[in-house]
């Protein structure tokens, strides 16, 4: 039996969860973990495959969240005497606008990344997220500032036999996030296992060598940033419509850190890494909340993270892949992308 079937068995299992799970709260946890997994998958394209550390990734997530919220709620702005009215849009218009606008910012950051690399790029990306947070906090006319944008409608879909259904139910959101997470995974997989993905990996592994054989590294870095940013924006839009309120804290640095932790502990540069890391660090805090006080939660969270980084520096997925390969005996090839740099 081909190993290819395992991921699909896992998806089938996830699809069955709402049918038998009694506690709706778990569905909520899985859905929010799923949203973060999409964000982590998007970060992994940049961090894991092109090797560029962006510590402002949450900016794209937050931009997506705000764009989706603002387009579905509509807004009006006054510039002196001029008044600009943006009417309410259907939820899916806002959803796609979120992807496009976040992707557009990705284009900007991608072009910038080529001028400033390494530590400077890290600083630029952190500042970018901070600036976004400041705008969200202070442009009260547009964003309501710390008061948050409320009453954001849920996503809706036309379902045969039921008509247009708002996604008020947990199962609907759960399935939507599951489908989009699978699509995000497949999208990254297609890119990574192609000539385009090889160019990204070449940039990560050895930039001068990549240049010397004609790889236009700028171009592929920009492609990676745009795709990554658009996908993070989509995750942000999902988040907005799911929790139906968005405030400037969506841009907090801690969310970027969470995404980085998911990618690194799962295994950066592997396809499954952000999924595994995302499940652990997306669901763990929520599950711990049931049994432990906040302080204890954070300590346990920290211990789990340090233990993984310490014992499995490459991440969980590469470690498992190595185990598996060893079991199958010498000569067994590892999965092409199951390797960290």
């Amino acid at each position: 039996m081909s190993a290819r079937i395992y991921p699909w068995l896992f998806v089938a299992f996830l699809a069955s969860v709402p049918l038998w799970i009694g506690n709706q709260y778990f569905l909520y946890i899985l859905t929010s973990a799923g949203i973060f997994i999409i964000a982590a998958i998007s970060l992994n394209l940049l961090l894991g495959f092109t090797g560029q550390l962006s510590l402002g990734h949450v900016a794209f997530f937050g931009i997506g969240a705000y764009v989706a919220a603002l387009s579905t709620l509509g807004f009006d702005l006054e510039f002196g005497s001029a008044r600009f009215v943006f009417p309410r849009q259907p939820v899916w218009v806002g959803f796609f606008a979120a992807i496009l606008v976040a992707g557009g910012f990705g284009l900007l950051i991608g072009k910038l990344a080529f001028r400033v690399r390494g530590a400077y790029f890290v600083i630029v990306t952190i500042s970018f997220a901070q600036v976004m947070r400041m705008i969200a906090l202070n442009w009260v006319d547009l964003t309501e500032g710390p008061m948050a944008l409320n009453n954001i409608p849920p996503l809706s879909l036309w379902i045969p036999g039921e008509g247009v259904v708002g996604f008020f139910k947990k199962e609907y959101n759960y399935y939507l996030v599951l489908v989009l997470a699978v699509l995000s995974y497949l999208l990254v997989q297609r890119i990574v296992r192609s000539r385009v993905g090889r160019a990204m990996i070449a940039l990560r592994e050895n930039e001068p060598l990549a240049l010397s054989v004609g790889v236009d590294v700028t171009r592929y870095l920009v492609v990676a940033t745009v795709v990554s940013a658009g996908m993070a924006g989509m995750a942000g839009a999902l988040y907005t419509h799911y929790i139906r309120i968005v405030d400037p804290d969506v841009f907090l640095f801690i969310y970027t850190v969470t995404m980085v932790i998911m990618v690194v502990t799962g295994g950066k540069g592997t396809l499954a890494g952000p999924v595994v890391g995302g499940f652990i660090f997306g669901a763990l805090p929520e599950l711990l909340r049931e049994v432990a006080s906040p302080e204890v939660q954070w300590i346990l969270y920290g211990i789990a993270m340090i233990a993984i980084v310490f014992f499995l520096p490459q991440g969980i997925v590469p470690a498992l892949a190595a185990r598996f390969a060893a079991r199958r005996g010498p000569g067994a090839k590892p999965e092409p992308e199951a390797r960290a740099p």
Partner: protein
Amino acid sequence: MTGHSSGRLSPPGALLEVANVAVHFSGLVAIADLNFRVPEGRILSLIGPNGAGKTTAFNVITGFLKPTAGHVLYRGHDLTRLAADKIAGLGVVRTFQRTSIFGGCTVFENVLIGSHLRGRTETWRALLRSARVDAEEQALAGHAREILDFVGLGARSGELAGNLAYGEQRRLGIAIALAADPKLLLLDEPAAGLNPSETEEFMRTVGRIRERGVTILLVEHDMRLVMSISDTVVVLNNGVIIAEGPPEAVQRDPEVIRAYLGQGYKRAAG
């Protein structure tokens, strides 16, 4: 006889011309005024003591460094205006003095990356993964296998490049460059650190690369190797050319011998 002297009288189709190139690093003159031509189909070696400016010349030719002055002409293109990846696209491909591979990728993937410019697939097509993309991937894979067999790494294609032995990594470096379909191949000390039998093997490889119609610009310290395979030798010292000509003539040049004294040149050349 390599026919170099006749070539000098009536310059044959020089594939590459380095004209009045100077490189200064904040005061340090790495290259003072460099002029030479590489005729098509030949092997030209650039030699000189450590720090003579050989690698710097390679960096200028392949677009990794902008010269302080001068031009590099390749088939009518001024390479000094082009970015490194565009120069590779014209068929001017270099290897690196320090072993340079994609260590985290398999040997096979290394060569696939090398043949990047043979492919056409861009993001949209990669996402749709049409039959055309699959056909291209197969063609690239076939090409990669051919190159790996050519350098004798065919049996190692599934191995992680970082796990190869030193000599194999050096060969992989050449395979990556060959995969990029060079017309002009610049090899920076390809035999450095190889044992005598590996060097022997490498010499044959260079010969076979030339048979593929590739012009070669070689930087190498192994004088026996240089003198036996070069058509022309250019000797660089302190950023200036002190001798140029067929190996036999250069070997006897008193200034060359002086420049190399203390570097064991006589011994190596003898």
